[in-house]
Every structure is written in structure tokens, then in C-alpha cells.
């Protein structure tokens, strides 16, 4: 991955001036490069990494395995795209192995996720079966370790 993308992936809030200093470029060159990444769809957006466990009324998230029937035209694409449009579905991946689609679905509480599965997902044409696994605790999200304190007693001056 390009060094600029790595820096942004690590901290999307980094200013173009700082990025320019880090990369030995001008701020204009950095801004131009970011724009072209955005235009090419390489950068799709900028989001905060939130430790949801710390929120009051933290959402409930489940990983849901979905088995599908493929269609002659387009395979899984049409149905997978339909499923992805539900706002409850936060991520969706086509998988190899024992099931076809892996979804990460969030709701305010257990009931909300359960009713999404039973009423919306399972009833769709093409959905053959589902398996729902509720997430209990997040240890790491988007490369960021959660809950793990950094206890480093490194000396501040060393040769």
C-alpha cells in the first residue's frame, strides 16, 4: 500500500501539511493525491474507530452466516447486494467454505437483531439458512487494540 494511504488508514485526521512533511511532498501534492484516491474510489470514506463497549446503550452486534441459492445470472451478487442495503447490516462479505455470506448486523438490543434475522433476512427468496453468533466483547477493531492497557516502563533517555 502507498505510504500516504497507510498514514491515512492509521489517522484519517492527519492534516495535509503534516502529511506533506512526513512524505517529503508539498501540501498541494498531498491534497491532489488524496483527491484522486477519492475520485478513483480507493478512499471510500473516513470514519472514527469507536469502542462501542464503552457507550451507554452499546449496540448489540451479531456475526451471521448466511447460506444462499446462487442464480444463473450473476451468482450471489443480486441477493448479496439486496441484503447489504439493510441499514442493520454493517458489513457483508462473500465467503468460501460452509456458508456463502458473512454479515455483521447491529441493533439496539438482542430482540432487534433477532427480529431482523427472523423477519427480514430468513424470509428473503434465495436465503436457504442462517446461523447467528452474538459478539460479546471487542478486543481489536480496525487494527486498534481495545481494552488492553499499554504499560511500558521504557526509560526516557537511553544510549
Amino acid at each position, binding site marked *: 500500500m502507498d*505510504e500516504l494511504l*497507510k*498514514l491515512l488508514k492509521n*489517522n484519517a485526521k492527519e492534516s495535509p501539511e*503534516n502529511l506533506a*512533511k*512526513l*512524505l*517529503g511532498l508539498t501540501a498541494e501534492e498531498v491534497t491532489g493525491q488524496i483527491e484522486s484516491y477519492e475520485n478513483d474510489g480507493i478512499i471510500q470514506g473516513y470514519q472514527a474507530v469507536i469502542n462501542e463497549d464503552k457507550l451507554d446503550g452499546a449496540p448489540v452486534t451479531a456475526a451471521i452466516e448466511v447460506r444462499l441459492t446462487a442464480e444463473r445470472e450473476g451468482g450471489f451478487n443480486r441477493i448479496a447486494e439486496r441484503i447489504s442495503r439493510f441499514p442493520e447490516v454493517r458489513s457483508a462479505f462473500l465467503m468460501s467454505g460452509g456458508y456463502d455470506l458473512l454479515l455483521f448486523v447491529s441493533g439496539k438490543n438482542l430482540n432487534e437483531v433477532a427480529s431482523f434475522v427472523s423477519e427480514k433476512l430468513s424470509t428473503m427468496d434465495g436465503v436457504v439458512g442462517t446461523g447467528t453468533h452474538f459478539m460479546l466483547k471487542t478486543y481489536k477493531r480496525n487494527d486498534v487494540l481495545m481494552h488492553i492497557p499499554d504499560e511500558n516502563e*521504557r*526509560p*526516557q*533517555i*537511553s*544510549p
Partner: protein
Amino acid sequence: MKTNVPKSLHSRIAAHVRDIPRSGIRDFFDIVSSRDDVISLGVGEPDFMTPWHIREAAISALEQGLTSYTSNLGLLSLRKEISCYIAGLTGTEYNPETEVLVAVGVSEAMDLAIRALVEPGDEVLYHEPCYVSYNPVITFAHGVPVAVETTAENDFKLTRAQLETKVTDKTKLLILNFPTNPTGAVLSREETEEIAQFAIDHDLIVLTDEIYGELSYDVKHSSILEIPGMKERTIYLHGFSKAWAMTGFRLGFSCAPPELTEAMMKIHQYTMLCAPILSQRAALEALKNPAEDIAEMRESYAVRRNYMHSAFCEMGVDCFMPGGAFYMFPSIDKFGMSSYDFAMKLLEEENVAVVPGTAFGSCGEGSIRCCYATALDDLKEAMPRIARFVSRLT
């Protein structure tokens, strides 16, 4: 019962140890440690943790109960991997049975090499500013340290002409450290050849500390080992601390002709016995896929190097762009105060710790060492503080 008042303990300390001044870096360390919320650019180690797969290998070794001594030279499996890695890095083949010694850091290997070679009165050439241990370790071995001063005007390079002014018929050893701590200086292949020829012409042994060999940013580092005729007269030192971020594992090694390795081993076996087995197992894992681990960290240091350098340029501080290692050695000469006073004032007024250049030899006066293997967030806080401090001085 008659009790004798003991003679002063100070007077009983061996003169050649007593007379070595306390390290300036330690005094400064004590002051920095007594303060809160200091942003430190004063460290000599990466801010990365050791890659997880390496830490995991050490844990697994402990789980398996690998808690014994190893062969004095180190685990043969590790020496084989080292030999293979160094062949890839420098094109030089070493026999893992007789030419590789695993030590407790390059520091120990350096001490072993100097003690194995230096007799009282032998002169040892090294370039300054340099790592803090060279001068004292030569002195502990009753040798005579002979510093060759390098300067920012010459990109802190060492040249044959400089060496020729210091060499005598008592010179036995030449210590090299490129890329250099604290300046980040590097030598090109041609410049290294010139020094190799100097060593050959004066029949010197070369002790090359290449701990920063992987951390070269603009061109690939060229080891003196690559030059024909050098393997026979070189002790090559390397270790895992810097490139793999494994400082606390304390693991380094030497590659040298069998006679020299055997001599170093004699001292090592009676003073250290062997390097810790858990660290050796971790190092074995480190050598499995070194390119990937190192490349990631090197790229990250490279961008921080750019950042720090442009920050110094912006504040009008003269700063040599280092080609390797992870230090910058800017000149603070124009502010009319000593390195120590500058560092102390910067600490007091802005809570940023840097190391006074004099810690690395008297010719480091007029400079400070700043480590850019520091978290980017800390750098982004520290550099504006230094800029603010400097603007008050001008």
C-alpha cells in the same frame, strides 16, 4: 576485638575504572526521570513493540520449558540462521560451527572483541561522535582510545585522510559504526572501499558495528564485509535490538574468523556463559521472515525522518539529513550555549528531552541527538515545542 577503619572505598576502585567519568547520559537521565509529562526524543530504541510472532515464539519457548543453558556459542540452529541471513545481507559466508558467536547484545560482543584483541597500550581508532561505550570499553581493556572527529560539513563521514593523521605503529584496531548512532551518517560503497584499503595497508583489524545496517533509507547499506580481503580481518557485529525492535531481549552476535571467534568465546564462556535461551528462541523466529518485519518499521521511520528534518529546517536549525539509523544530530551551535545547557533549558521550559551531543564524545559539543523512532503523535507535539523554544533564543 580490634576494628580497622577501612581505607576509603573510592581509593580501592581500580584506577582505570575510577578515572572514567560518569556517563553524562546518566546524569541527564536522572533529571528527566524526576519530571512528569516529558516528551522524550532521548531514547536509543524503536517505539515499536517487538513483532507479535516473535514475542509469541518466546512465550511458546517458555511454555515448552526451554529454560536451560545453551552452547556457549549459542544455539546451533540460531547460528545457522544467522549465517544464512548474513550471507544474504553481505554476501559473506560464515561457518555457523566456528565463526558465529551469539552474545548478550552487540554491547557484549563489542566488549568481547576488544578484550580479546587489545593489549595494554594498543591504540584503537574510532570515529566520533559515536556510541557511548566505545571509549570506556577500550579503556577497560587498558587500550588507548583514539577518536577521529567527524563533522556535519562532511556529513559525519569518516575518510582515509582523517584516519591517516591518527594512525601510528601502535594502532591495532579500527572501530566502524555505519549507519552511525548518534549522527545517522552512512558511507557509500566507494567510501567504504577507501577505508578498507586503509585497514589493509596498515594491517589493522576492523570491528564493524552494523546494528543499524537494515535501517538505511536512501540507498542499501553496503557492509565493509563486501569488499574483497576484508572478511579475513573483520569482526562483524550485529544484533536484533534495532531492526527488529528487540532491545530488551539483549541479543546480538559476532561473525569473525575462527581464531578470533574462539578468543572471544573464551571470555564469553567464563563471564556470560551463554545468551538467554528464550531470547535466542525469539531471535530464531525473527530470522524466519525478516524482510517483512523490518520493511514495515523502516518505512515508518522514513516518514518520521522527513517530518523531523523539515521541522528543523522550518525553525532554521541546521540539520544533516541522516541516511540511516533513527537519529538526527542538529547543530545548536548558533544559539551560543553548550549542548548540555540547551538540552537542560529545553527540558525545563518545554518538557522535551533530547540528549546533549557531548554524551557521544567531546566533538558532539554544539549538537543534540533527537530520536525519530518516536511515536508520530509525540513528534507532532515535540517539534512545535522545540520551535517555540528556539524562537525565544533568536
